[in-house]
């Protein structure tokens, strides 16, 4: 069973979202997602400064046998990306929720995060898969 921290929010496309104290959010892919993809070999990060709407495909992660789009969980502007992943995308395999964060966003409306799933709803979805 994969790890699903309770302090995060989730999407059905397996992104996690963490609300930081300064009102920004940090985004990555879940432990379940990294496990399903297998050893990651490449990541294409979003462009810093880009404004994106919820549901936009904003970056891509690739393993040997699969490629998966990452969808914007929340509307906002991309503030920062995790450059360490460019050379070592496997960081996501090893630490999906911490060192493996992918990008940070300034949401247009921070309350949007409330519409995302909490840990127990996400776990329930995983059960159904």
């Amino acid at each position, binding site marked *: 069973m994969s790890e699903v921290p309770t302090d995060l929010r989730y999407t059905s496309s397996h992104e996690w979202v963490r609300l930081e104290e300064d009102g920004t959010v940090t985004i990555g892919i879940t432990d379940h997602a990294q496990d399903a993809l297998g*050893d990651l*070999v*490449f990541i294409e990060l979003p462009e810093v400064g880009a404004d994106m709407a919820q549901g936009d495909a904003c970056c891509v992660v*690739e393993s*040997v046998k699969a490629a998966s789009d990452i969808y914007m969980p929340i509307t906002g502007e991309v503030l920062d990306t995790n450059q360490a992943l460019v050379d070592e995308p496997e960081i996501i395999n090893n630490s999906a929720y911490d060192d493996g964060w992918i990008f940070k966003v300034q949401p247009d409306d921070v309350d949007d995060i409330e519409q995302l799933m909490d840990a127990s709803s996400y776990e329930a979805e995983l059960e159904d898969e």
Partner: protein
Amino acid sequence: MLIFEHSASGRKTKIQSTSGNDLPTDIPAELLRKDKPGLPEVSEMQTVRHYTSLSQKNFSIDTHFYPLGSCTMKHNPRACNTLAMLPGFLARHPLAPEQKSQGFMACMYELQEMLCDVTGMAGFSLTPMAGAQGEFAGVAMIRAYHDSNGDTERKEILVPNAAHGTNPATATMCGYTVKEIPTLADGDVDLAALKEAVGPQTAGLMLTNPSTLGVFERKIEEIAKTVHEAGGLLYYDGANLNAILGKIRPGDMGFDVIHSNLHKTFSTPHGGGGPGSGAIGVAERLKPFMPLPVVAKEGDQYRWLTEKDCPQSIGRMSAFMGNAGVLLRAYIYMRLLGREGMQRVSEFSTLNANYMMAQLKARGFQAAIPDRYASHEFIITLKKQAKELNVSAMDFAKRLLDLGYHAPTTYFPLLVPECLLIEPTESESKEEIDGFIEAMVQIQQEAETDAEMLHNAPYTMPVNRLDEVRAAKQLDLAWSSDK
């Protein structure tokens, strides 16, 4: 060892004609190359020996049973190659005038006619150079047809979720969005879902029949009617034409456009990954849009149809007329088979597949669609083995190599977990098929007693399992002397 590692600087090899070392006086120095390109410098014998020994590291139809599902790895008769490589054919320049091309054009015209006959279509263009290009031509014609009717709101191509990955990729290249239609457990398209999905936005449906699940789509007429009534057209992916050759024709099933993989059904060589041919057939209403050139016959003379004759054509798809040498091989094969031979192809490829499926079922293997006849191919799912024994379809595939059989297609279609898609073709004997079945039984026994051993198979190949993660991360795509 790479060919480059046999190289020695200054070894002059196969120089065709010597012009001396004088550089051309009319070409300015800044347009000339200063360094020597890093090609190998090897003798003819070193080259022959190197590439002969490399060839011996390949499985091929000529050396092994190769039941690669969806690829139709049948015997490639030698006459097809020998005759297509007659000097007169090899020497013909693609832009040679028609009066110096009648022999070649006669073959192409007759090939078009025979393909129309076996598929039930009204016209054929031979120019697409592989299945994927044929698909592109087909979908582009669908678009041209709608556009010519001023019907520009059709933005969507429907594709069953069992479809080959080229179908959605092609639809995108033609500027369409793709909507997937689910498949029922018995292998047929979910007709209710299709009826929901069609509408004024539907440009067409791309379908393989028999499907990639290895069964005949029984409701094909109703599917055709549903799509046509919504104003869409029907595209036939000819990947599985071998299963129905001489029995039933896509044109009669209601398809408007089809591509035929000549390297599958009509036995042109697979060549380690091409050249293929994706000749494309159309119903009457799509004829004006065919890609060019096409051969026409007037009296006893053959001539090329060009943009002047077909102003609505979707255009050209290759610099000349596609993979002509491949087309000649298909032509020769079709003449050798003849009309009665066509039917035998579907009969015996289907007999082989069903016999194999019956035998494997009897030995405890699980067929993906157990209660229906297979077409020319069928699927075994190793879901149970994966779950209970921790042995995957990949493990079975790799172990088969040790036992002297090329593996079936693995993990396609994506719908069936842990699957092997098995296509024996008509040219394999019962004896060969029985050997494969025994090999599967042996691997099943090994899975039960020594699963770990299977995880590291194969053992007898020039290499065992390769590090694909390393290949993708530490990209090494070309040799250079400093590596």
